[in-house]
Structures are given as C-alpha cells and as structure tokens.
C-alpha cells in the first residue's frame, strides 16, 4: 500500500495532538504561584468598584510580597449558583464575597473566623463597627463574615421630579398615606403618548419591598426562631395588601409586569421604597439624576421593617491559606478602604468613616440626606438566619406573591398559601442543611 510508510507518522501526529489537547483541556485553572509565594483566590461580584478593588489588591501585594492574589470576577446574577457549584466541587476559593443572606446555606463551607477576629480585634478595629453590623456578622455567636458593605432599606426619591410636580419632598415623619398622596401626584399615565411615569417603583420577584410593608404593618415573615412562617397573620396580610394596592387601588405603581426597566435611573419612577445601597454607585454615575434618600415612611404598625443586611468576606473552610486570606480581608475592610468606597457612594459599616462622611461639608457623592440613612439603622431588621430562608422565600413564597400581584389571589389567600407552603417545606427539610 502506497501510504504504509507515512501511516505511523500520521497516527503519531494524531496522538501528539490529542495529548496536547487533553493537557490543555485538563489544565487546572488554579493559579500557579511563583516559587516561594502563596496564591490566594478571591471570588467577587463584578461591580463599578472593580477598579478600586484591583488597585487595593495591587497595594496589598506590594505590602505582602509573598502573596499573590488571583481575582475571579463573576456577574451578580450568577454569583450564587457558581459559588455553590464550586462549593459542591470542593473548589471554593480562599476568600469569597459573602453576606448574611447567603451565610445560612454557605455555613458548612465558611470558616469560623471567631479566633482570628478575637486575636486581631484591636488591629482592625472591631469596635469601630456599628453594633448592628457587629451582630449581623455573627451566627450563633460565631463570626463568619468580615463586613465591608451594608444594605439598608430606604426611601429613595428624585428631587427634580418632585420639584417639577410641586410636591413637597419626603420628610422623616412620613407615613404610608403621605407616600400614597405624593405618589399619586407624581404619576402620569402616559395617555399623551409619552411613556408613563409612576410615583413609585414596585420591586417584583423578591422580598425587598413587600417584606417592608409586612413588617411595618406589624407582621413578620417568620417567627423569632425562624421555624414558622407567619405570613398568614392579619398584620402580614395587611402589608401584602398595601403592596398590591399601590397599583390596583392607588395607581401610583405600574401594574404587574409593566415595571419600567431601571425606572429610577431612567427617571420613569419618582420614588423607590426599599432599594439597595449597591445602586448608589450607579445613581451617582448617572448624569442628570438628582436623587436623595429619606427614612422609610411609617406603616400602621411601626416605622421599622426595612432590611439591614451586610456583605463582606468569608474564608472557605477548606482553604489552605487562611492566614493570607484573612490578611487580605482585613486589608480590604480597613478604614481607608471603606472610606474610599463610601466616597463613591455607599454607607459605611464603620462608625469612624460614617462620622467623617457626615461631617464632610459641601457636595459629595453620597445623597444629601446622609444623616437620614444612618438614622435608618435604628429601623433596620436583619434577615432571619434560617438555613433555607432564601430558598423558601424564592421558591415557595414568592410565586404566591406573584399571583397576588396578578390578581389571581387575594392578599389573604396569598398570605395563607405562602405560609402553608413554607411551613410544609420547613416541616420536611427543617434544618436538614447542617
């Protein structure tokens, strides 16, 4: 056969190529350190602070020549599942961005930081944290997160739209009635062909807004021990009713499904109830958006009800370089770092930085009414630390709320169904997650 000579050569090439291919395919993406250096991997959500973080890491590496930091950037919406998949594959990075919402189910993978916190308390200024923050970083008395960031439910409003409509800006004494009145005055239904403008946005799809109303009406989502769902109480139902009636009765929020995308930024909604401090950075980057914050308006039950959640850094239980990761975590949350984040537009977890921000005169990136934001601390409530909280709220409760917004269920029915389903879930799964 004419090709017999070349045959082995051909197959050898194929084998070599295949081997190379497999080598490339199987290459571990764990960063390989230069000899003598440790590499720690850091998993963080993509945010407008990206450049800040990158600079911080560079500064850290200069201070600690023996450590290399490898950053994994992940989009926010994927972060949750990706982190869990990595955890399931026992490939969690050393340091990862975490929060008290996620802590409950990431607990088995998170290192107990209590000894480290106690050891270095003076160095990184443990007492500098607000007491509420200090409490939020713990679970069952143990520390798991070093906080960098917090979220607080606030009332956001667009000053220009208020001025244009001649409506007085929100005050610290506002109640639901004031919210309704202002909202209605600010709503244009767009009958003249322009896109409709709504007095208030309505956050759909998660508990960010409706839970506020439930609490402010005097109800609760869960019992204090987190084991029973209490959304079927009359107070909770009253809160759900207000959430629905924003559009169905008072008509100052868009009907279900018609919420303008990024309404506040696009100046299609005048107010946000709840919101997220994460967005301050983006609001500040939006030209022409003159925004401010105020305390949440009080409900029939109380003014409390807004969320107080923290986010920060956890170290994975299986990390082989916990000390280095801890060093990085401390570096990223030191007062100077927090101050530079706050300067872009955020709330501070540290008292010293908060006070400095409040004292600062003149125009600043933060909302004008920063004092109100820090006052809201008194009214913020942390998220229950039930291990299945997130799952219950998303998978079991939220669909009933969705149906309520669509008019398929009355608020009473929604509350009852949600509570029944959540309780059934907890009866089955309970604290199955250790």
């Amino acid at each position, binding site marked *: 056969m004419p090709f017999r000579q070349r045959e082995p050569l051909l197959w050898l090439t194929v084998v070599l190529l295949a081997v190379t291919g497999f080598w490339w395919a199987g290459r571990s993406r764990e960063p390989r350190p230069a000899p003598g250096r440790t590499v720690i991997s850091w998993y963080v959500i993509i945010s407008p602070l990206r450049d800040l973080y990158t600079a911080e890491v560079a500064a850290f590496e200069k201070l600690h020549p023996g450590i290399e930091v490898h950053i994994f950037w992940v989009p926010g919406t994927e972060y949750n599942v990706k982190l869990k998949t990595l955890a399931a594959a026992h490939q969690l990075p050393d340091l990862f961005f975490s929060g008290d919402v996620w802590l409950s189910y990431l607990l088995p993978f998170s290192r107990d930081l209590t000894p480290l916190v106690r050891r270095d308390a003076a160095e990184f200024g443990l007492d500098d944290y607000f007491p509420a923050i200090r409490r939020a970083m713990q679970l069952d008395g143990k520390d798991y997160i070093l906080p960098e960031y917090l979220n607080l439910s606030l009332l956001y409003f667009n000053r220009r739209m208020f001025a244009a409509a001649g409506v007085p800006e929100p005050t610290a004494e506002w109640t639901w009635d004031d919210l309704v009145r202002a909202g209605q005055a600010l709503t244009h239904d767009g009958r003249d062909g322009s896109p409709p403008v709504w007095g208030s946005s309505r956050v759909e799809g998660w508990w960010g807004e409706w839970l506020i109303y439930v609490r402010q009406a005097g109800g609760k989502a869960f019992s204090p021990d987190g084991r029973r769902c209490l959304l079927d109480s009359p107070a909770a139902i009253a809160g759900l009713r207000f959430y629905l009636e924003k559009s169905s009765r008072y008509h100052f929020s868009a009907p279900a*499904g018609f919420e303008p995308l990024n309404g506040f930024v696009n100046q299609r909604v005048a107010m946000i109830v709840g919101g997220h401090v994460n967005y301050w950075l983006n609001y500040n980057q939006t030209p022409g958006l003159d925004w401010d914050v105020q305390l949440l308006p009080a409900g029939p039950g109380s003014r409390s009800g807004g969320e107080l959640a923290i986010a920060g850094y956890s170290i994975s239980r299986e990390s082989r370089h916990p000390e280095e990761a801890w060093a990085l975590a401390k570096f990223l949350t030191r007062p100077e770092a927090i101050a530079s984040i706050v300067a872009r537009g955020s709330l501070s977890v540290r008292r010293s930085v908060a006070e400095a921000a409040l004292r600062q005169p003149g125009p600043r990136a933060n909302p004008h009414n920063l004092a109100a934001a820090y006052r809201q601390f008194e009214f913020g409530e942390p998220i229950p630390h039930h291990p299945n909280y997130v799952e219950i709220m998303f998978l079991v409760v939220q669909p009933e709320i969705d149906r309520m917004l669509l008019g398929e269920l009355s608020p009473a029915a929604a509350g009852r169904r949600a509570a029944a389903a959540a309780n059934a879930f907890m009866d089955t799964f309970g604290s199955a997650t250790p």
Partner: protein
Amino acid sequence: MTHRRAQSLWFWMFAGPAVAGFAAFSLWPMLESLWLSFCQYEVVTPPRFIGLQNYAYLFAHDASFWPSVKVTLVFTVIQLPLAVGAALALALLLNQPVRGRGFWRAVYFLPSILPQAVFAVVFGYIFQADGGLLNRLLALGGLHGAAWTTSPTWALPVLIGISLWGFGYPMVIFLGGLQNVPRELYEAAHIDGAGAWARFRHVTLPLISPVIFFNVVMGVIGALKVFDLAYAFSVAQAQPAPGGPARATLFYGLNLYQQAFGYFHMGLASAMAWLLFVCILLITAVNFRVGRRWVHYGD
C-alpha cells in the same frame, strides 16, 4: 486463533471505547442517579438512604414540582402539534415542483440548527414589555401591548412561539419521507379519480406515517427535556429566580437544575430526573404501541 475469537478480539478493540463510554457515562450514572433518588443528598454530607421520601415530597409537598410538570406538559401538548403540523405543511408545499426548493428548504431549516439560547435572547428583546420592538410597534398603531415576557399569561405562549422556529428539523425529515413516496402511486390514484385531498389521505398519509410517528416521538421527548430555551429566557429577562413570575415558565428541566445546583437538593433532583426518564420511556412505549396500529410500513 479461531475466526470467532479473532472477531471477538477485533470487536472489543474497536468498539471497546464506545462500550466503555456507554458504561461510564450512561449506564453507571443512570444507576447511581436512581440510587441517589432514594437518598437525601445535600452535597455537604454523604448520601443518606431515605427510601421513597423524595418522591413523596415531590408529589405531596413540593410547591414547585406540579407547576413545573404543568408548564412542561402544556408546552408539549401545544407546541408539538403546531410544530409537526407546520413541518408537514411546509414539507408538502416544498414537495411540489417548486423553483429554488433548495433555497426555501435552507431558509426554513436554518433556524433549527441555531442555538436555542440565541432565539430566547433575541425574542426576549423583541417582546420586552417596556420598550421592546413589538410593543413599540403596537403603540404606534395605538394599541397597548401586553407584558409579553413578564406576564404569566403570555410568557409561556411566547416561549412556545419561539420554539416553533425550530420546526425545520422535522420538516426536513418529512421532506425526506415524502420524496420516498413513489410517483406511480399518485398517478394511480389520480387515474382512479382521486382529488388532491383524497390522494393525501390515502396515499401520502399512510406512506409517511412512520415519519410522522418518528417526528412525534422525537418531538415529545425533546419538549419534555427543554432546558436551554427556558434557562436562556430567564437570564435574558433578569428574573431573580428562574421560572418567571408565578412559575409561569418554570420548565421541568429548569426546576431540576435549580434544585440541584441552586439549592443543593441533589437527591431530590435525582428523583425528578428519574421521573422524567420514566415518563419518556412510558410515552415512547405508548407511542410505539399506538404506532404499531396505524403506522403502515412497507408497501
């Protein structure tokens, strides 16, 4: 070496990797998955045998199981006849003497080989409630467009519509089958005085019944397994939890993925997976039984 031994040797040398692959990547995982479906497995701890509790939970207590079954079934029942019907109709049209048949066939077939994710994204964009192309066009005409992608009433129909763009696949199969029908039979029927419809009913249909059957079976299996479309759609709509408001588009495959990788309920997800598998087997078996009665092979 005897001839039979040589045959055996060569067979296993050549087919060995494939059979090994089958054992490693199909057979073993299938069995392990069955085992896991009887266990509580939350990833953190090793699987713990709990008998039928996962199944009991799914049927009686899980809030998202039956809705996801419903969504998938509704999707299948509506999408399949439409897709197969459209495929057959187009194939019949193209089976006639038409000019540029290759071109038409290409145009109708092309979307079905493109990734479903792309269609989910593009259509999601077109159908966006606030500012999407469709609603803006409707607004020009003075009509108020619905919240196509965010409303539970419309989201699933929209997805059904999107998936119909992939009818090119069964269409080509139909074309192949139609072209295998001997011309003489049509001639004979025509001579006998049969009109077009009668020809279709008595010549075409029986002879392409195997093809119809094949397309229906494959279509059902494909519809039950839908994942890419649902997942891409939920990402493109930035849904906080996949499945849309009130679980309107929570397909079975999507629910399974969430349970497994979103919430670590791997035992439960395995139970869901096996239920799906059994369903597919049953439907295929039923199809074959029904098929045997009205599918005409040969002559």
